[in-house]
């Protein structure tokens, strides 16, 4: 069972994964029902589930979920559409990299959340501001990671393509790009996860809708059940989107997943 790097069967993998959730809920139930933590600070699992049902039946929570998903995807797609091509150019052409890399490495460390007050000043509290937070948070990360992936392309394949008659455009479009695509897709999956963090932060401040806004509202009412349910939903959506992304990658790039 504890042989290093020994693969585990799919059935056991699923069972172990579910087991942790069971352990998690049992511990949560134990500390709340057992009175170790007062309900003011942490609602018990049943209370959280009840709050969840209320949220959907009385507070139109699905609209909040929809708007949050829309913001995440919108900001993420806009960032990716510009960041991926720039990253590819930086990875392929060292002079492009030399031009952009220092600034982007600097910009990457600017925390997206610190821009929120400025962005409210510039763009108000509307959708543009929410999208901007996600774009700032995702764009620079994607650029740098894609540049590293493309820059690490196999030189022997580039040389082989040259002996087969490939010129500059052919090398970039038909050697570097297809070789890097699966890893770029993995990077996007990772950054999409981070985008979820940014959207919630953006919604905690100056928002009238969204999961983050609901969590902020619940805090005013000290409703820890609703807060926990909101956080739980974010995790669940993350899990689902991650799964879909993974499945799509395996479908689109079967060659990459051949053992």
């Amino acid at each position, binding site marked *: 069972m504890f042989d290093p790097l020994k693969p585990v069967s799919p059935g056991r993998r699923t069972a172990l994964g579910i087991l942790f959730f069971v352990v998690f809920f049992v511990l949560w139930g134990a500390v709340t029902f057992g009175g170790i933590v007062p309900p003011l600070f942490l609602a018990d699992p049943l209370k959280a589930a009840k709050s969840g049902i209320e949220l959907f039946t009385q507070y139109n929570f699905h609209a909040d979920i929809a708007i949050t998903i829309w913001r995440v995807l919108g900001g993420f797609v806009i960032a990716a559409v510009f960041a991926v091509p720039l990253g590819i150019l930086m990875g392929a052409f060292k002079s492009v990299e030399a031009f952009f890399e220092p600034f982007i490495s600097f910009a990457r460390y600017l925390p997206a959340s610190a821009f929120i007050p400025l962005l409210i000043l510039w763009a108000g509290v509307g959708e543009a501001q929410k999208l901007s937070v996600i774009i700032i948070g995702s764009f620079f990360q994607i650029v740098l990671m894609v540049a590293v992936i493309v820059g690490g392309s196999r030189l*022997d*394949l580039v*040389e*082989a*393509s*040259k*002996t*087969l*008659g*490939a*010129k500059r455009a*052919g090398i970039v479009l*038909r*050697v570097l790009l*297809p*070789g890097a*695509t699966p890893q770029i897709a993995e990077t996007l999956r990772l950054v999409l996860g981070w985008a979820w963090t940014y959207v919630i932060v953006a919604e905690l401040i100056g928002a009238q809708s969204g999961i983050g806004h609901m969590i902020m509202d619940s805090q005013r009412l000290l409703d820890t059940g609703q807060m926990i349910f909101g956080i739980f939903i974010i995790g669940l959506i993350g899990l689902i989107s991650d799964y879909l992304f993974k499945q799509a990658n395996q479908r689109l*790039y*079967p*060659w*990459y997943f*051949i053992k």
Partner: protein
Amino acid sequence: MSKLRIENVSRVFPGVRGGEPTRALEPTTLSVEDNDFITILGPSGCGKSTLLRIVAGLDQPTTGSVQLDGAVVREPGPDRGMVFQSYTLFPWLTVRQNICFGLREKGIADRQQAEIADHFINQVNLRGFENHFPKQLSGGMQQRTALARALANDPKIMLLDEPFGALDNQTRALMQELLLGIWEQHKKTVLFVTHDIDEAIFMANRVLVMTARPGKVKCDIAIDLPHPRHYTVKTTPEFAAYKARLTEEIRVESIRAAQAEH
């Protein structure tokens, strides 16, 4: 006029971090005639791969020049097909798509690409594996695909850099027969780098022996064995005589190379 002229070509690699520059290849002059199958035999590190890379245009000579059909080689091009020792198939393309890569870069119509690919898939016995990805193939099959991929471009000369070096002995022997059969049929001009003496004699009409680093051509031996060559030629007295001579030539260089490392 010679097919390929290598004139006074040398290569010195600059020293790393203030170290001494490395003389990989001493000035080398060589004429390759049309339909020649030349094997270049030498101990490891003798610059034979460097010479081939310069002919391919993947490396630039420090002195001298390479001319193919009278035109100076400056960069890699599809007129010089290359097969590398490492597996360099594009992993995202199937066998068929790999073979069509060069044709696609040339802008050849899809239907014609398919015809050419079919022809070479048959030639290297890969029928039934056209839609496999490289990772699903054995090493021998990958190198056969690489060979087909280079041949599909109809290059003026084939450059092979120890293409069978990573294969087991039995597979290697079969690959040699396959390549020789293709050469006997198409009469391509071939430059083939190897450190395997049997391989060098079996396929070549000329064997060049290179000295240990810094490499230069030590001797140029014509192999006068009849065609078509059958694998049984390897056990004939004539073959053994060539082998005895080349073994002596290469042994001296291997000892020099080993001593140079100490």
